């Protein structure tokens, strides 16, 4: 029964997964090319990794909506490997690195087979952030020069950083045209999320950059009948015969220490990047599934092995592309597969166009990626959690920049541990209890709740014990984690717990942490949960009301409603609306509530996508209780985007009797019969004759979304009237 059903859903959802795979391939193409070029590998190495990764992980993987391919984090390690192992000869270095990639694939596979997925918990959160930032700085430092058209700037990361001002002054003298394309591209990437045109956003930003720069090339060739003013060395080169020129991995340095160091670094970064991505992407899954991390690691290992033999880079799970997948309706691994197929088709049929992409445009994408990894915002956020966390972050960042990744992360772990000793002033607590079990979990017989108690201390060193227990609790249940017997809880654990809380929230479970309040008072707990939520940074800022807030307050008085300007980091009531399933809600603010608590107007900050495709959005919403029980539905304006969705398999309910309504509105939901009976002529006339909002029902409540930005006072008034009229109309239906 179950099998048949799954097969049925699979085929039903196939069109929308093909669509999602297509959109992802648009992002994946420039990234795959760019990441390969940035590692000094042939451009196709990135494509091979993405194609092999997409196919193999789709078949053998254990996650659902992740996308696999060449990863950002690996650029620095691979670059170092290719330049150092070949001793100056890049192609030789590439062949040696392929062997290292294959070996790291084997290690990755073993990691998964031995179920060591939990190992990633041994890395303290701040040190991990520091390491990622160092990778970001490394990418940025190198690619900034390439973006300006200067490919010959050499030196280590620090030297390259120092030369950025020189390059900025000089680049117009070398390749002004290509350099300007690079600069315009990077500016475009930074401002992309400010442009709020839905049609525009159908194509992801990196693809716009690629399409735009190819377009300029064609403009010169076809309209101006001139040669494109970009030097040939700044264009991508793809070999004529892809199959016959397969490189052969060189295993000649198998026992070389440098080589083994490369293997270990690649594996380390591949594991960390993949696990972090899988964890983050699980939060974007509409179907709220839990990924089988170890199975995924096995598949990624296998994919890396195959990719290495075919001349490709390592395969890891990538966050930006996965989030694009989630946002475009990907529901299972087939979208990963189709992304690979589309990539292959691009390379086979659009080879000529790809060769017109200027390297400066790709470098611009990488500069943006590097900036996002090393964004100063991260440091500020970590500093808010605690100055000692910022110190750990900086120690890791600097050590990584000056030495290597492995040394850097080791320094991060050590400094974290020393900080803990310093904060707790007791070696005894850590040394005596490190290897002892410290977690008890049981299901309370009386209530059926899961109770988890943690003893002694809980930090990155032994978080895996707590995780092992927490993973056994279904997220739809009620879990209570008690720290009252625990003397020390670190930031890594607090962040991990916050993750659990979000997973439980998504599945309508309850996840409570108790016993920390007394703690903070007793020992001035440095990693109190309140501190680990970034939302508090905003709390202090809202002292005086802005004009809009004053107006809202006045409106509340006029309606004799209540106005609450406070920021709420966990807004209630918006669970269960499809709109938020693949989005992350940050906070709500400026709440207007009527006396009976029936109507609720609020501004909401939420984000869509992750990493380089992340967009922070704000909107004004109206939530109100329906007087009757409704079927679950979503009503939206019919436009190009919804038409595309329809083509991709998202169904639109149309009414033969009401062609105007059917044409202008996109109505979807599972229970067609109930929805059709709800939307009678009166209701349809009501919608036709009023402004069009995005409206959702979750059964008991209705949610109205205003514009794609915060609504003005006038618009809020219209929304409220609209909702009131709708309520009275629905009442009559009873």
């Amino acid at each position: 029964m179950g099998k048949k059903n799954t097969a049925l859903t699979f085929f039903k959802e196939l069109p929308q997964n093909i669509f999602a795979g297509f959109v992802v391939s648009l992002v994946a193409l420039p990234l795959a090319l760019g990441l390969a070029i940035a590692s000094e590998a042939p451009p196709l190495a990135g494509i091979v990794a993405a194609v092999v990764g997409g196919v193999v992980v789709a078949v053998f993987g254990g996650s659902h909506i992740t996308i696999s391919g060449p990863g950002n984090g690996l650029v620095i390690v691979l670059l170092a490997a290719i330049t150092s192992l070949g001793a100056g000869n890049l192609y030789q270095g590439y062949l040696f690195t392929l062997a290292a990639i294959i070996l790291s694939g084997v290690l990755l596979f073993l990691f998964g087979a031995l179920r060591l997925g939990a190992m990633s918990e041994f890395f303290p959160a701040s040190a991990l952030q520091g390491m990622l930032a160092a990778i970001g700085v490394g990418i940025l430092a190198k690619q900034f020069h390439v973006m300006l058209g200067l490919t010959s700037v050499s030196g280590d990361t620090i030297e390259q950083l120092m030369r950025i001002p020189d390059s900025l002054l000089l680049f117009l003298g070398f390749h002004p045209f290509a350099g300007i394309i690079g600069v315009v591209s990077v500016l475009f990437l930074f401002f992309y999320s400010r442009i709020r045109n839905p049609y525009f956003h159908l194509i992801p930003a990196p693809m716009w950059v690629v399409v735009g720069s190819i377009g300029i090339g064609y403009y010169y060739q076809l309209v101006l009948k001139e040669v494109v003013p970009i030097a040939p060395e700044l264009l991508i080169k793809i070999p004529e015969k892809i199959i016959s020129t397969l490189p052969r991995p060189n295993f000649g340095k198998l026992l070389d220490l440098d080589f083994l160091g490369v293997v270990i670094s690649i594996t380390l970064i591949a594991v960390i990047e993949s696990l972090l991505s899988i964890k983050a992407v699980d939060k974007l899954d509409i179907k709220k599934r839990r990924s089988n991390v170890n199975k995924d690691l096995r598949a990624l290992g296998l994919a890396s092995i195959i990719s290495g033999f075919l001349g490709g880079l390592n395969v890891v799970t990538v966050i930006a592309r996965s989030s694009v997948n989630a946002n475009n309706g990907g529901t299972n691994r087939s979208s990963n597969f189709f992304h690979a197929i589309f990539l292959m088709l691009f390379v086979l049929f659009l080879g000529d166009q790809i060769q017109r992409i200027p390297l400066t445009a790709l470098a611009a994408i990488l500069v943006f990626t590097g900036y996002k990894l090393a964004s100063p915002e991260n440091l500020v956020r970590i500093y808010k959690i605690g100055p000692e966390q910022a110190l750990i972050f900086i120690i890791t960042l600097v050590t990584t920049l000056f030495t290597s990744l492995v040394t850097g992360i080791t320094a991060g772990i050590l400094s974290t541990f020393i900080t803990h000793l310093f904060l707790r002033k007791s070696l005894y607590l850590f040394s005596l209890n490190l290897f002892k079990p410290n977690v008890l979990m049981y299901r309370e017989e009386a209530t059926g709740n899961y109770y988890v108690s943690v003893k002694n201390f809980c930090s990155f060193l032994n978080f895996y014990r707590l995780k092992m227990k927490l993973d056994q609790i279904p997220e739809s249940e009620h879990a209570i984690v008690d720290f009252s017997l625990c003397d020390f809880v670190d930031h890594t654990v607090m962040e991990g717990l916050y993750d659990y809380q979000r997973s439980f929230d998504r599945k309508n479970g309850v996840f409570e942490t108790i016993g920390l309040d007394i703690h903070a008072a007793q020992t001035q707990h440095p990693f109190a949960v309140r501190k680990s939520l970034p939302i508090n940074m905003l709390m202090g800022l809202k002292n005086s009301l802005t004009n809009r807030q004053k107006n809202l307050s006045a409106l509340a008085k006029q309606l004799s409603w209540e106005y609450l300007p406070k920021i709420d980091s966990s807004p209630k009531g918006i669970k269960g609306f499809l709109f938020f399933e693949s989005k992350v809600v940050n906070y709500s603010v400026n709440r207007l509530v009527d006396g009976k608590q029936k109507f609720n107007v609020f501004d909401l900050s939420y984000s869509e996508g992750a990493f380089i495709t992340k967009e922070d959005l704000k909107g004004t919403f109206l939530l109100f209780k329906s007087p009757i029980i409704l079927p679950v539905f979503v009503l939206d304006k019919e436009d190009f985007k919804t038409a595309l969705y329809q083509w991709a398999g998202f169904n639109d309910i149309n009414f033969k009797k009401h062609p105007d309504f059917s044409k202008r509105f996109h109505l979807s939901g599972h229970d067609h019969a109930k929805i059709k009976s709800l939307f009678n002529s009166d209701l349809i006339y009501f919608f036709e004759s009023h402004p069009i909002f995005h409206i959702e029902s979750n059964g008991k409540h209705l949610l109205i979304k205003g514009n794609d930005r915060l609504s003005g006072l006038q618009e809020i008034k219209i929304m409220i009237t609209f909702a009131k009229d709708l309520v009275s109309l629905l009442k009559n239906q009873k």
Partner: protein
Amino acid sequence: MVFNPFKKLLFGFAFSPSLRANVFEVTRLASFFKAKLIFVHVGEKTTSKETEFDALLKECPLKPKDVSVFWKKGEPVKTLASCCEEFDVDLLLLGALKRENVVKYYLGSIARKLTREAPCSVLLMLKPSIERVPCKHVVVNGFDSPQTQETVEAAFSVGCALSSEKITVVEEISESRVAVTVDDDRSLRKATLKKEKIDREEKIRVADIIKKISLAKTKGLKWETQSIFGSRGYSIGHYARIVRADLLIMNAQEKPRFYHRFFPKDLEHILAELPTDVLIIQSKNNG
């Protein structure tokens, strides 16, 4: 006649600051159990010590009928262990030490060795006090072992003797019995179902044990069960601390083997960090 496993109690004493509280506690216990009480002192016997101890004994408000004091010489562990055999003692009473500045209790080296070598049951007392602290909640292990029947039976008789309010039988279930590793939703569902099944089986097993105990029916003593999936010996100690149990009753260790020194078993976790008063029942079947 109520079943009483403890007819002869033995307390090895030394002149320490806690002697007074210890003697008060011990005499009170013996009178609750209606048992004989034997005091043994290992070391020099002096008249001043003797008079001091006699005076102390007289102060005790509750005293069993039959109290005797012996003064022995020799190595403490061996002497006390042989006394237990010599007098055919049912229960050996030992005081625990409190770790400096920390609210954690552990056993001194003598007590620790005695716990392992004693031929009878052992009670480790955490906080002996002059005033009586009622023993409200008793936690007893209920895992699948031939000794458990006797241990649970003893728990009920102790519970009655000390007029406790509640007994919780804790079944510690090794996670290896579930045999499903949680990786994703499907394996989680499978593991949860399997656990529920094991849980039901364990409940039936424990209920069967309790059915055989006549005390459980007659007295108004409440009892309940709690299954815990986790490492044996560790979980029950942690649990006893959380529910603030006043007494934890455990099976005695099966014959210690050489490798247990390296892989601590059952009791070791509890002895390393005593959660509350611990009573270790030496079963007649064991040995």
